[in-house]
């Protein structure tokens, strides 16, 4: 009898141990190489065309991202994590706002947003009910004032995710109806943020600027573009056009640190990186092939091109295909390509796919998808995928490159 009871206890103990083992915190620090980044390393201050859909954005000491509102009636709202104080707060400054009603300036905000000059620029869409519209607004972070630039009932309007904010202007691609062809197309426009005045931009030959000509960044009151064959600059009126570099460029992923231009050649997901002076001289191969990359004031951070298979996709949305992660490592090199070092390994017990990342000082902040084959059957089921940032469940991973530790940033709602 005693033996029977003992065996019951043993089974209970075994089950509890099993549960605890499967739930424990895995030591992620094994994934890092403990590289000690420069504390003064920051995202570049140059005005670049911002990817509005990037899940996390750095601006003036804070990481901005979209998360859930307070209360049971959840809506999307904008959050920011202050790196110095380690505090997460909503960008809406109203202390009693729950951010889930139309009174909140961020109610119904779209996923693409842009930050410049202490202001957040975004569209809000109200697609349901009788009063359907979208508008484009600016929220001033310092004084919490909201300015509406325009409002339209065309809620299914097209949007292009890259926009550039510089010197009081918004440069963006807007859909325009061509009377001759009877079709819509994207054309580059300039909005004066103080007055709301908007003009379409044309090159010297009166040719409209569509998506075949990509807006890259701005320097010294000049915009830089790429049409795939050359990188050229022009002033804000599209005069003073100068060709900077000729070659074969990808449309996007062309950056500058103010002295040099960095770009990728080849395939979008396997780019060979180069740099040259702003006048086009001293073109150099950096010896790096990257799937995704970005530059900071001191380094090039990139995802390598060694893909790997996590397992069979057995989720309810997609079955049978392998889940392939396009990169196995997050790496870092100096701006001349030297000292190429692994920062974080993505292919471990837990597999990561990095969606977006930014490096600030000695930390890297990431939004990611995490795959963990808990039952070891080489198949990924619904509960074995975690996506770090969506409105109802989110966390930002923060890798400390100094000591290799990893922490997760979450906000109290």
């Amino acid at each position, binding site marked *: 009898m005693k033996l029977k009871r003992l065996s019951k206890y043993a089974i209970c103990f075994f089950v509890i141990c099993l549960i605890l083992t499967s739930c424990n915190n895995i030591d992620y620090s094994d994934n890092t190489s403990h590289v000690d980044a420069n504390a003064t390393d920051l995202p570049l201050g140059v005005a670049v065309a911002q990817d509005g*859909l990037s899940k996390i954005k750095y601006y003036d000491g804070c990481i901005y991202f979209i998360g*859930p509102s307070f209360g*049971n*009636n*959840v*809506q*999307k709202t904008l959050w920011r994590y202050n790196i110095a104080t380690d505090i997460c707060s909503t960008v809406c400054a109203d202390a009693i706002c729950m951010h*889930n009603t139309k009174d909140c300036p961020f109610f119904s905000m779209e*996923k*693409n947003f842009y930050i410049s000059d202490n202001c957040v620029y975004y569209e809000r*869409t109200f*697609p*349901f*009910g009788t009063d359907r519209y979208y508008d484009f607004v600016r929220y001033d972070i310092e004084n919490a004032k909201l300015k509406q630039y325009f409002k339209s009932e*065309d*809620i*299914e*309007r*097209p*949007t*292009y*995710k*890259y926009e550039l904010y510089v010197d009081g202007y918004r440069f963006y691609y807007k*859909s325009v*109806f061509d009377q001759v062809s009877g079709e*819509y*197309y*994207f054309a580059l426009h300039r909005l004066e943020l103080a007055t709301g005045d908007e003009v379409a931009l044309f090159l010297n030959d009166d040719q409209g600027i569509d*998506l075949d000509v990509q807006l890259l960044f701005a320097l010294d009151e000049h915009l830089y573009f790429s049409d795939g064959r050359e990188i050229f600059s022009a002033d804000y009126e599209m005069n003073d056009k100068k060709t900077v570099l000729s070659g074969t460029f990808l449309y*996007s992923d062309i950056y500058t640190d103010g002295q040099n231009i960095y770009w990728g050649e080849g395939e*979008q*997901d396997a780019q060979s990186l180069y740099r040259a002076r702003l006048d086009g001289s001293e073109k150099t191969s950096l010896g790096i092939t990257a799937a995704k990359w970005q530059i900071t004031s001191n380094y090039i951070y990139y995802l390598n091109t060694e893909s790997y298979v996590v397992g069979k*996709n057995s989720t*309810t*949305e*997609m079955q049978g*295909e392998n*889940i*392939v992660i*396009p990169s196995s490592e997050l790496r870092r090199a100096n701006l001349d390509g030297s000292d190429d070092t692994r920062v974080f390994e993505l292919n471990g017990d837990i597999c990561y*796919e990095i*969606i977006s990342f930014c490096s600030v000082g000695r930390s890297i902040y990431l939004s990611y*998808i995490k795959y963990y084959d808990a039952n070891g059957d080489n198949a990924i089921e619904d509960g074995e995928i975690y*996506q770090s940032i*969506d*409105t*109802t469940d989110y966390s930002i991973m923060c890798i400390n490159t100094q000591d290799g530790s990893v922490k997760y940033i979450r906000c109290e709602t």
Partner: protein
Amino acid sequence: MKKYIKIMLCIFLVASLLTVVCTNVFAERATIDVRNSVYGSRGEGFLNSYTGASHADTVAISNGNESVSVELYIDSYLVQEKENVGSSYTTAWVRIADSGSSAQSAHYIVRDGVIYRGYGEVFVTEKIFPSCRSKDLQEGAI
């Protein structure tokens, strides 16, 4: 024997009628074109809401390297969203065991940096025949 067959036929008839009534009155569905005025359609969205269950999904015409996502709202409050990123996915769907008097959905497909949108809204009448739920769900447009 004849009596038995008659009773069975009656039961079958009543059950069929109930099913039809439930499906038509207490389940609402919408098909949404995910498009924009520049490049047209890039996929479809579906929104189904029943007494006790709601479902929304976005289906892209082809796969690409960006994202497919869906947001499901019950009585205009966001209850669930899903975004699938990368070339492995052409669909994203959410389902919850809940319904209100109305359900809304927002569908997004991002291709080559361009955002395509579609929105759906359906109104669900009051629950009378809860047993219809599972059948309706199976008939959903997934």
